[in-house]
């Protein structure tokens, strides 16, 4: 189904009285066509309602004037040349009604009346377009302010150390929701106005960290994104079983994933090296049989742009000495 655009919504929301022209120039039935010509010319309008004793009795346009001129009836009264019983619009109706009227009748303008039938305005296609554009502009402006507020949160909210912490519970072997936490982190970073390259790196690191918790932990763990003014920290902490040989685990292609996980396309042994590639700093600590804590830092300022090499940034792996036979 095609999506309904904001403009389509607006034509149902905005009322005719919000966009119509209020100071209506009117003429009386006794006005001559010559006088009408002057009125249309000075006010730069192409038609006007005809009012008698405050009551709307007709409408006259530049077309009627041309016909009168062609017929040599420039001194005729408006009453003779006007369209009587003009089609009107009600002020409190939505502008979709007006749009339909313009489509249905071949008129350039409609007088707008209140519920008592009193003339209170006039509406042209131009009024509708202008009204819609104004409304869209206001909404756009509001959205701009909202975006500005989010992306300047770290300037607006002052503390000695400000950070925004997003925490996600990751459940082991929950492939149905795999990748959701990292998707949400990506969305948040976009919302905060982080540069696309930073968002991409953070998203990849978060995804691989999330997958590691899903694939390899006993009971799942927590994925945390901490956004600070100068850097983004992705943290993945679980409650075991820990990594037998951290250095080996860092090698591209090394994997301990069982066959069924590999068949799903996971466990290619690229997770940690992918993370390393995206990180400016990477800290991995994993006492065997206890827990694993992975911390990835991505710099938002010049520091990162200057120091980061293709193969990744500062890598700090903390693992106690272990016997190889444990692996």
């Amino acid at each position: 189904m095609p999506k309904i655009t904001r403009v389509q919504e607006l034509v149902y929301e905005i009322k005719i009285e919000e966009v119509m022209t209020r100071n209506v120039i009117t003429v009386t039935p006794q006005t001559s066509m010559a006088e009408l010509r002057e009125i249309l010319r000075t006010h730069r309008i192409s038609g006007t309602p005809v009012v008698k004793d405050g009551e709307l009795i007709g409408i006259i346009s530049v077309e009627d004037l041309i016909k009168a001129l062609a017929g040599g009836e420039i001194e005729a009264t408006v009453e003779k040349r006007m369209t009587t019983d003009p089609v009107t619009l009600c002020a409190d109706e939505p502008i979709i009604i007006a749009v339909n009227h313009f489509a249905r009748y071949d008129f350039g303008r409609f007088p707008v009346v209140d519920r008592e039938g009193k003339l209170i305005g006039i509406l042209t296609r131009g009024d509708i377009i202008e009204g819609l554009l104004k409304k869209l502009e206001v909404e756009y402006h509001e959205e701009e302010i909202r975006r500005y507020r989010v992306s300047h949160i770290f300037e607006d909210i002052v503390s000695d150390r400000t950070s925004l912490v997003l925490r996600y519970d990751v459940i082991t072997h929950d492939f149905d929701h795999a990748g959701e936490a990292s998707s949400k982190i990506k969305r948040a970073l976009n919302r905060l106005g982080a540069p696309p390259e930073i968002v991409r790196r953070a998203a990849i690191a978060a995804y691989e960290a999330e997958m590691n918790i899903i694939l390899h932990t006993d009971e799942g763990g927590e994925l945390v994104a901490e956004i600070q003014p100068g850097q983004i920290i992705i943290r993945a902490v679980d409650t075991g079983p820990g990594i037998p040989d951290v250095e080996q685990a860092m090698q591209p292609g090394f994997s301990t994933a069982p066959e069924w996980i590999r068949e799903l396309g996971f466990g290619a042994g690229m997770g940690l090296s992918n993370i390393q590639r995206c990180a400016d700093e990477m800290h991995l600590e994993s006492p065997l049989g206890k827990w694993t804590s992975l911390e990835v830092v991505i710099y938002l300022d010049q520091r990162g742009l200057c120091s980061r090499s293709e193969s990744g940034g500062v890598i700090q792996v903390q693992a106690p000495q272990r016997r190889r036979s444990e692996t």
Partner: protein
Amino acid sequence: MKLRELCRQLSLEVRTAPEKLDMEVTGGYATDLLSHAMAKAQAGNVWITLQGHPNIVAVASLLNLAGVIITEGMAPEPATLEKAKEQGIPILTTPLTTFTVVGKLSALGVRGVDET
């Protein structure tokens, strides 16, 4: 080349997000290993794989891929289609093998990440 044109040329079946076919395809990448896709595929790439489980959508969405082509008539899981629809990721299926699909894409001028 637009994704719509690729679908037409290769007679791919569009399973989700038909409204996203006007995206310009920036290149292609083929693998069945998700971490490799995560590492190599670029934004706007089309990814050719045998995998049909929901995680391909997460990868495609995180990397802003143009779409995923599932080959050899593998049926994507219902959850995959649901997620792809939700996130606006085109899932395209074909009975052709990955090799053939890549060959055809190459002939149409779609380049690999190491060629661009």
